[in-house]
């Protein structure tokens, strides 16, 4: 554990380093005091002390490995129908059993996870980028605030599912021709989910930026003539990282679930393309006879969402200089 005095130095350091260290006099407290340490190493050290986040990180990495490397090791085709071996329980030949057509559940879980996680991460990053961009810009530049917020409200007022359906109906065929049925659907779904779920992030970020703008250190930075882009990147964004992180973790969950809803309506991936959401929906009718087929994809979705949540929690704590070290 660091001493309080160290902390004080650190805090000053990380803040003071920001407004362009080259502009400061050479008698810099960083060089004068503690040994040089990178900010990210500090973040990592703090992150490691968050036990929940560490467990979540291990879990998330293993899920990623499971879906990314798994299909190389377990080579059964997830769409191979073997109806003589249908509805089987756990066995050596099929570690997670088989479904109602005798397709191997382990292979389906791995392939399905690839799609679901990819959709979740990509859609989340689109939504996040859009949301924080609009939030920061509208919070920071007074003149753009009103039009951007009205735009956000406009998007919030749009009924999402019909909008998604419309986008899919309009663009599925042209995209599918260019990128193949799976690639086209992927691009369409992630962008559709991305552009329809950035609004909450934007509003939260804007609120935080508005509060931040009145703080002394911003005033100080302004007074020495920091240009707006650097101000945003160096002072504003790091301070609103926590709400963005929370929005991100929730966004992954929403994206995975929206994807399954679209698949369920026949507007998602082709029907023989397993995703976790589709596996879950397919199994619901036979939940009582074969509960594992519901529990497995459900558990994977929950674990992914939960671990991303915890990682986000840990990251937020680690990146907040006021909490770091406590």
């Amino acid at each position: 554990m660091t001493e309080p005095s160290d902390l004080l130095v650190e805090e000053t350091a990380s803040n003071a380093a920001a407004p362009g260290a080259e502009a400061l006099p050479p008698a810099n407290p960083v060089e004068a005091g503690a040994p040089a340490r990178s900010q990210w190493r500090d973040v990592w050290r703090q992150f490691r002390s968050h036990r929940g986040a560490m467990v979540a990180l291990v879990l998330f990495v293993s899920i990623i490995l499971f879906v990314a490397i798994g299909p190389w090791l377990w080579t059964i085709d997830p769409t191979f129908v073997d109806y003589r071996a249908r509805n089987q329980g756990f066995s050596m030949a099929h570690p997670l059993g088989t479904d109602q057509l005798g397709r191997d559940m382990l292979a389906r879980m791995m392939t399905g996870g690839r799609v679901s996680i990819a959709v979740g991460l990509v859609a989340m990053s689109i939504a996040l980028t859009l949301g924080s961009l609009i939030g920061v810009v509208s919070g920071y530049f007074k003149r753009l605030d009103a039009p951007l917020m009205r735009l956000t409200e406009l998007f919030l007022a749009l009924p999402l599912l019909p909008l998604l359906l419309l986008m899919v109906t309009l663009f599925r065929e042209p995209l599918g021709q260019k990128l193949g049925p799976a690639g086209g659907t992927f691009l369409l779904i992630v962008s559709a989910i991305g552009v329809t779920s950035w609004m909450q992030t934007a509003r939260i970020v804007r609120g935080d930026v508005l509060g931040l703008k009145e703080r002394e250190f911003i005033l100080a930075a302004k007074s020495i003539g920091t240009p707006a882009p650097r101000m945003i990147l160096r002072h504003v964004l790091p301070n609103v990282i926590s709400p963005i992180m929370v929005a991100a973790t929730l966004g992954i969950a929403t994206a995975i679930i929206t994807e399954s809803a679209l698949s369920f309506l026949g507007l998602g991936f082709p029907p023989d393309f397993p995703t976790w959401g589709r596996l879950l929906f397919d199994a619901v009718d036979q939940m009582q006879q074969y509960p594992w087929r519901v529990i497995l994809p459900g558990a994977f979705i929950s674990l992914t969402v939960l671990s991303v949540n915890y990682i986000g929690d840990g990251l937020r704590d680690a990146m907040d200089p006021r909490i770091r070290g406590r």
Partner: protein
Amino acid sequence: MTLGPTASALALAALPLTALTAPALAERGADGELRVLYWQAPTVLNPYLSTGAKDVDPASMVIEPLAQVAPDGSLTPVLAAEIPSLENGGIAADYSAVTWKLKPGLLWSDGSPVTAEDVKFTAEYCMDPAFGCAVLQEFEGITGAEVLDAQTVRLNFDAPRFAPLQAFVGGRTPILQKAQFAACKGAAGVSCTAQNFGPLGTGPYKVADFRPGDVAQFELNPNYRDAAKPAFARVTVKGGGDAMAAARAVLESAEYDFAWNLQLPPEAVSAMEAAGKGRVVASFGSMVERIDLNQTNPSPELPEGERSTVKHPHPFLTDPAVRKALSMAIDRQIIAELAYGPAGKATCTILPMPEAYAPEAPACLTQDLEGARALLDQAGWVPGPDGIRAKDGTRLALLFQTTVNPVRQDEQALVKQWWSEIGVETELKAVDGASFFGADPGNPDTQTKFYADVEMYTDAYYLPDPASFLSKFTCDRIPTPETQWQGNNTPRFCDAGYDAGITELHATGDLAQRQQFARKLDAQLVGDGNYALPLIHRGMVSAHVNTLSGIVPNGWEGQLWNVADWSRVK
């Protein structure tokens, strides 16, 4: 006024099953309330506006046709005294008119007498060009209705019709009361809410309360012609939920007595049946699940307006060897067993019922992957480096579309696998049912537009004579952009020999000969031609609690067709 006991006993004798299960002497209204679950709720009670089973079935308890179709495909009189025939003079010798005689003493539920005027009015009501009658095709060829006396009405045809009994047969064309609907003719028909939501009828029940899309309540019709029926005093038809919830409400918790249209995985249903509270019944009519093979090119590279039109024949589905191989590769028995259970049987014909029309020797029931491969080899389709067969640069790669439905997706997966085993690549697509069966000409995913190589759905006909069903596949019924993609010949099958056969069928009166012609046409289209691949003869599945008796499966009529005979086992 009601029928004497002998007459009703005779009517019962026509339905041997009913006679066995129905209690001999029930008292009218003694069994309290019957709770029926239609998970797609009725939205209107006038079959002339909507032919959906969810609307026609509840309406059939109130308004009745002149005759209905019995489970075996024969006709039974309902409001008619007898079924018109050549022998009793009901059908004119030259097949140019049909004379129906009403039962004597029939009353509407408001107490007024049923007369031939009502029949004449109903025919004119539906045939009014400004109305847009949902069952207009049943009135095809009728030039007018003529009242001969208060009990007798004659329907005149423009030309001899050799399936003369069509209009007013079956629950889709019931008789409406002239006095009630007189103001609803033509364009006003749709806006007559009071009438369409609460038609007066002759059936065992009358409408007590109707909330569209939610619940319909019916109470005893005091003027029903059989004094001993119905056994239930009230019927509630509740909508909402889905097939699974409906099955549970009947089979597991017995909250409801009867639930309709339960297409569910066979294992799920048999597990629920094991609870011992209810049973599942399948009624087999003419429903056949089939795969249509597009004879025109649906390629997206073609300009819009030329895709899936006869201008561009399909690159390989026009090859009879490919069509036959696709059919041979499918194991219909496995599909029936895995996806349908008691609700379906493997079939090789689109005319499964009545049995006299079905082909004698179904050839497609055994899967023959080896034979299919040999056939493709012979026809010059040889496997390429990726295992997919090709000839002159054309690969056997298909887009296979159907509606979103777990059972259909299982079928798709099975068929895809079999086709891949003979070297045919399949891409699957599932479309929301409402948009697939919708008629929007701007929607690229409709069944009639057929922007895919093959598509799967269920088709059916409602009268035992399949002549008008077979007429769907003539050249002039091919959907085109000019007709806003209307037309039922979805495979875009066009064969002069078939069209001539249809003409011949429509000009033949003799039953045995008609059956022979129908079998020949069926063979041309599916048996030998393989333009459409029939898979499953489907039954309409419903569930009822064990305490409900009198249910007779009937694939031709609605599920509530004999509700007057239903009773509670004590």
